[in-house]
Every structure is written in C-alpha cells, then in structure tokens.
C-alpha cells in the first residue's frame, strides 16, 4: 500500500523534501530504457531456467521413484542440498571456479585445448552463467515436488500396464509423464515468479548487473533505483509494476492451472 503511495512521489528517502508528481515515475519507468531492458533480461532468465525447473527435476524424480531404496534416498538428500546451502557462499564458490585466470573451469578447458572464457565478465555469457548457478536450486526443490506428485500416482494402472507387457519406458512416456502435467504447469509458473527473486543474490554478489547491464533483472533495477540512486518514488513504481505484472500473469494463467490441477 505504502509502496503504491510512494510511487507517486519524488523523494530521496531521507530528506523532508518530497513532492507529489503523480504518474511521472511510471512514465519515466516506461520511457527510459533501463526498466524495460531489465524486464527483458528477467524474461531471458526465466527461459534459461525453465528446463531446470521442469524437465531436469522431473527426470531425476522419476529415476528415483522407479527404484525406491537406500541408494535413492541418499541421492535424493544429496540432490536437495542446494536448497539449504547459503546462496552467498554458493555464489562465491562459483566465482572461484569460474575465475578467468586461475579458476578450475578455465584450467580444465585450457588443458583440453578448448577456448577459455571470462564467464561472468563477458556480456554474452554472464546471464547464462548466472542462470546456471541459480538453476541448481530449482532442480533441487522441484525434484522434491515432482517426487511428491509421483508418490500420489495410482499404482494400479501402472501395474496393469506392466502385466500387459509395456516396457518401463512406455509406461513412463505414456502413463507417468502425462499425469505430471499439472505439476509441470505449476513448476513453470513458479519458475516465472521465482526466477527474478532467486537470481537476485547471485547477481548482487557476482556481477551487480554488469557487464553492460547484461545480467540486470527487474528486482535489481528496483533496488538500484531506491538504494543506489536514492530515488524512492521510481523504485516504488518499479515494485508496483512488478507486482501488477505478476498478478496479471497469475490471473491469466489461472484457467490453465485449474485445467491441469490434480483432483
């Protein structure tokens, strides 16, 4: 609420001097290139991480579900670790191995005779590197959610297919995956919602949005407006714009989510 009021003001957060500027902050958001650019980059993050929020964790969950036992439990608890690891520590570990000069990734590539890269310093690769770093958390959490969906599947239909001589692959392909559609729709939606939030820490620690604003995202832009440029009004306008966009998305996707909701 307060954010909404703030978005109509021009104010530097601390001085008593503030004035009502109406929708000027919103106009500035839309007209200057930064915010639309940040939204586009956020969209790219979503696209880059979508497979890691859906296909990859689904495959892992199915593999673990097919052969329950000690080994699967161990894999599952190890694969879930990225969710509990501190994001800042993870980001620092990544920067350490991606270091352009002495990082193990480039040492290995160099050793194999492949071209070395400044992964986080090159505008062409930085966004993808950040996406990959953040993707671990999506894989870990969504594997768990897919696992829960699998556990509630009806085992009788699967057994019947098995008796009829269907191969495991056919069962997975034609019986299991279609029943996971609802979960996949939900995971895609959550990927859109969380892509911006979860990349934030990695961007803040690793690139601060650079190089050339290539790793900017909507939340980082909001943060920059408010706490780097001390322009509370525009920052708040960005916050309102993000929430409105998410709400619209939520409303638009409602029929899709409802259609695939599990009974």
């Amino acid at each position, binding site marked *: 609420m*307060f*954010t909404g009021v*703030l978005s109509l003001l021009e104010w530097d*957060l*601390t001085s008593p001097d503030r004035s009502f500027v109406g929708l000027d902050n919103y106009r500035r958001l839309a007209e200057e290139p930064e915010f639309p650019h940040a939204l586009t980059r956020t969209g790219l993050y979503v696209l880059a991480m979508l497979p890691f929020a859906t296909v990859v964790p689904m495959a*892992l969950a199915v*593999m*673990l579900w097919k*052969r329950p036992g000690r080994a699967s439990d161990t*894999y*599952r*608890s*190890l*694969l879930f*670790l990225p*969710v*509990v*690891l*501190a*994001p*800042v*520590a*993870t980001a*620092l*570990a*990544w920067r*350490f*191995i991606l270091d352009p*000069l*002495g990082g*193990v990734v480039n040492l*290995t590539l160099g*050793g194999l005779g492949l071209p070395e890269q400044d992964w986080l310093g090159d505008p062409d690769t930085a966004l993808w590197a950040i996406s990959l770093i953040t993707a*671990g958390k999506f*894989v*870990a*959490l969504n594997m*768990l*959610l897919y696992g*829960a969906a699998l556990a509630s599947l009806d085992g009788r239909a699967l057994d019947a297919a098995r008796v009829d001589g269907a191969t495991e692959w056919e069962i997975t392909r034609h019986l299991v995956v279609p029943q996971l559609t609802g979960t996949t729709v939900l995971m895609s939606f959550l990927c859109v*919602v969380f892509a*911006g*939030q979860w990349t*934030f*820490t990695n961007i803040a*620690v690793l690139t601060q949005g650079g190089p050339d604003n290539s790793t900017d995202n909507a*939340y980082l832009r*909001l*943060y920059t407006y*408010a*706490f780097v440029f001390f322009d*509370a009004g525009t920052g*708040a306008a960005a*916050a*309102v714009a*993000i*929430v409105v966009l*998410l*709400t619209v998305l*939520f409303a638009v996707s409602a029929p899709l989510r409802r259609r695939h909701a599990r009974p």
Partner: protein
Amino acid sequence: MPGHDRRPRATAAAVTRHAVLILTVFGMLFPMLWALSASFKPGSDVYGASPLPMPATLENYRYALGEFPVARLLLNTFVTAAGVTVLHLAAGLLAAWSFVRFAHRGQRVVLGLVTVALVVPPQALIIPHFLMVARLGQRDTFVGLIVPQLATCALAVLLLREHIRAIPPTLIGAATLDGATHAETLRRVVLPLLRGALGAVAIVVFITTWNEYLWPVLVAPSPEHTTIQVGLQMFETQEGPEHGPLLAAAMLATMPVVAVYFLASRRIADAFLQSGLR
C-alpha cells in the same frame, strides 16, 4: 521372456542409472566441493588444479576466525534466524488459531489478503520496510533486522490454519466444556497436536533467514549486527584477491546449516515440501 537374457540388461540399466545420478549430484555440488577443498589449501596454491588439498592446512580458517569477526557474525546470524523463527511461530499460531476459532463474515476477505501476501515478492516490500525501520530509528539494530522479516509469515499462517482445521472440533469443544479458556485450549490441546507442523515451519523459516542476504545488507550493514552472508562480502572488499580465507569464511557460513541438514535430511526435505505445496 527367458530369465537369462533379462539379467544383464537390467544390470546395464542400473549402471547407467547410477552413473547419471552420480554425475548429476557431482555436477550440482562440484563448486561447493571444490571451494571446500581449496579452503584447506595453503595461500600459494588456492588456485591450484589439484582436487585435494595437498598439503592441507587450517591456516585460512585460523586467519578468518582471528582477523575477522566471523564468530561474531555467525552469532548475529543465529540470533536473527532464531528471533525470526520464534516470532513466525508465535504470530502464525495465533493468527491461524483465530482464523479457525473466531470465524467471522470478513473471514474470506482477510484470508484472501493473506494469500495475496504469499505471492508478493519480498523485494517489492523493501522500500517501505526500510523507511519504517529508518523512521523508528531501528537501523542497524536486531529489532530492525528481525521484525520486518515477519512480513513473510503468511505461509506459516496458512499452513498452521490447515493443521488446526484438521483437529476434530469435538476435541476443542470438550476442552471448552471442561471450562478451559482459549489460552488453555490453545496451550494444552492444540499446541501438542501441532508439534509436527510447527517444527516444519521452524525449519524452513530458520534456514531461509540464515541464508537471507538482501534485508541485512540494507538495514544492518555494520559488523555488530549484520549476518554472515553480508559479512562475506565485507570480507571480500577488504581482502581483495586473498581468496583462501574468504573461502574458509564462506564454508563456515554454510556448514552449520549443512550439518543440521545431514542430521535430519528427511525431516528437513519434508518441511520444505509441506511449505512448498502450502
């Protein structure tokens, strides 16, 4: 199908499966493992290509703990995470209880608002939160650090509400009939039944707060109050390219949570599952 030709194929499939899973685990944990190993390497070969620290040294840890207030930062983080967790449980429990016990006509609207609060990204709230904390003179205090993090307690409210609704009303009715006050019913009847759900909320909130970065960096940037996640960055700017001690500090920042995770990985994963599905 003859049994003798099924066996080898099943074995081959099992080997492939284990290979894929082991590679995935390795791929996902590789940066952490490499950094962990490097944190034991002496300064000169932190960037070395050897996978194991040979020779191994505790020098980086000694330096991190001696020259920097890492212990203090860890304590701050613990205080903050514990404070946020306790407040979450208290607020969540009371709100959930009143939702179930004092149902009223505005109920649906309020519940709807709580659900909306669930999807509002915390980053969208940092500006007003920051202003309130600054106005109340609570910048760089534990109060300023802890209280606004309660804003995400919608999840606790909804989760606990589900669990309270699952308690048979006759049980609560019986307690009332026996003359128990609301507070007594809550403490003697509801609380023991909610132990599992409260534990799940506590686990998720504690870990999330431990790992939180944005709010502490904004509101409490000084080493007296800030958390270890922010401290890591401070460490970095002051140390420049001195990476050994930084990695050691990063390991200290994440290892407490990892240790707790390995003690109760099943339970912790379940807690995230419950809260994830709401």
